[in-house]
């Protein structure tokens, strides 16, 4: 990567640089802050996240239906213009961003939890390795996007009836994205468990009488977390994309929940008269995924011990 060499030169140029305490995370942070693209991504990401968390309290715009003001382009009064019902788009984008980001985080949390559990069990307990990995392979062979569409369609009404329209759809989308994306994490965790359980420190831990649970959670798991963290970061971007794809195809959130994908879906019919309605939510998805990818790549470089001097 481009950044590696920059880092090499800075470290080499100032070898006497004082670095008092060295810890894994301190080192990683040090490397990370020297990655310009990653830092830029982090700032943009932080800005977007703060904007959607705090934004809706400070600014809602006029969300009243007003046909006299429908489909207006950006103006000082409506910074992103209005939709077909004359509602302020910026307010809707801020509001919808909350749900898009929440979907991304929760879906990845499910995928990571599931993947880490399967990977850890498969890697640590040799007997379960083969069956669990066959299941992982099977899941990897599923056609993800078509299956997502079908699952959402099939279970939407039921979950809506149980949990209400908003929470029901949220749970379903998050769950479905989660169970179709845990496989790469399981493979990563299994691979590092397989190599780490042979190491001396694990043997030492067993000698002093640690049980399986303690060895797994205290000794091996913390050492295999960095690839998981990278996968999780990039996964959030992927999950946001998936949610917006579902919403864009009309199989995501209903129109009163203005996630970014849903806004694009609604805007699709007015593309010739109100292009601003497409541009702003689309840019939001693009910018957040891009910055997440930058941060993820920066993390990968920072956490990879082979790339360090």
């Amino acid at each position: 990567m481009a950044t590696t060499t920059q880092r090499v030169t800075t470290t080499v140029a100032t070898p006497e640089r004082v670095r008092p305490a060295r810890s894994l995370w301190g080192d990683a942070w040090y490397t990370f802050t020297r990655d310009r693209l990653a830092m830029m991504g982090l700032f943009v990401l932080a800005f977007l996240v703060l904007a959607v968390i705090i934004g809706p309290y400070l600014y809602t715009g006029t969300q009243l239906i007003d046909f006299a003001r429908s489909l207006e382009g950006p103006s000082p009064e409506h910074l992103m213009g209005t939709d077909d019902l004359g509602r302020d788009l910026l307010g809707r984008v801020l509001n919808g961003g909350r749900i898009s980001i929440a979907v991304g985080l929760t879906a990845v949390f499910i995928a990571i939890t599931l993947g880490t559990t399967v990977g850890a069990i498969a890697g640590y307990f040799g007997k379960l390795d083969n069956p669990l990995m066959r299941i992982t392979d099977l899941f990897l062979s599923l056609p993800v996007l078509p299956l997502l569409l079908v699952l959402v369609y099939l279970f939407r009404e039921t979950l809506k009836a149980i949990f209400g329209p908003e929470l029901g759809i949220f749970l379903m989308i998050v769950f479905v994205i989660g169970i179709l994306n845990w496989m790469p994490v399981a493979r990563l965790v299994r691979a590092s468990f397989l190599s780490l359980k042979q190491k001396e420190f694990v043997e030492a831990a067993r000698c002093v009488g640690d049980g399986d649970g303690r060895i797994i959670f205290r000794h091996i798991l913390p050492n295999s977390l960095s690839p998981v963290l990278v996968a999780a970061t990039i996964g959030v971007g992927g999950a946001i994309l998936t949610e917006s794809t579902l919403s864009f195809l009309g199989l995501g959130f209903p129109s009163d929940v203005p996630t970014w994908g849903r806004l694009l879906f609604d805007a699709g019919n007015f593309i010739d008269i109100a292009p601003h309605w497409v541009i702003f939510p689309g840019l939001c998805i693009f910018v957040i995924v891009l910055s997440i990818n930058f941060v993820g790549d920066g993390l990968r470089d920072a956490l990879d011990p082979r790339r360090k001097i």
Partner: protein
Amino acid sequence: MGRYIARRLLIAVPTLLAISFVMYAILALAPIDPLSQFGADPRIPPEARDQIRHALGLDQPWPIRYLKWIQGMATGNFGYSFMSHSPVIELLLQRLPNTLAVVGVAYIVGFLIALPIGVFSAVRRNSIADHVFSTFAYFGFSVPTFFTGLVLIIIFSVKLHWLPFVYDSNLKINDFGSLVAQLRQSIMPIAVLGFFEAAVLTRYIRAEMLEHLPLDYVRTARAKGLLERFVVIRHVLRNSLIPVVTIIALGVPAIFGGAIVTEQVFHVPGIGELLVRSIFQGDTPVVTAVLMIFAVLVVAFNLLADVLYAALDPRIRYS
């Protein structure tokens, strides 16, 4: 080698059966009645509904339906659409050429863009051009394809009026004019998918080239006085492309998935559009068949990737 391929094939068949079983089970156990579309029609009396159910074989337990379905699939009988009452296979054959044309051309275009850019970026690592291309590659796979598609429509159809934004599938190519029309309506969907693929592949090709460039055999090639051009193309590129070939094979199912979105944006009547439409209509036989096609694609290209990898890289042991 032959035994390796045979063994991979033997694994692929049960995988496919397991996937088909899982997908059929999901559809069969889902809380939505396949007859909900016309079953809910109050004009149809319950007896008639039972008759329809019986005629379609839906009164049998689903494992039996699955076995019959698999049996039918094996003999080329994919069932009948609930909506149009025509054989599913006919619908698929109508749609597949459109998808294959768009996806195939887009993939080739993507590769042809990615190959020179990836090689150039790796050779001129950290040059301004490399940074520009890498940034574009990042943009390419961070931007959702439906957004790229809509932006292209805004620019080229709405503002400039250069290109049509609805794909006309009835267009017959019989003279120069219709050929131009076909090209004009295919440019945007192909550009959207091709740009995305190019972005993904550029990164892989660049990364693989960078892995190989510092190796000893490259230094040897240079030391014996080969032109840099030949070192890069004959030695480094050939070795770097081995993993890229597998990436390309593994990526084919994903690009078919991406085609679902692109077909929806540009109204291309391909199998992706058929899937979305059938899902909304509750047309279970069509949905199952399209899902199965996607599953076959995934398994087949995984197999192809394994075999290609083994064939191209003599270091791989067939175990």
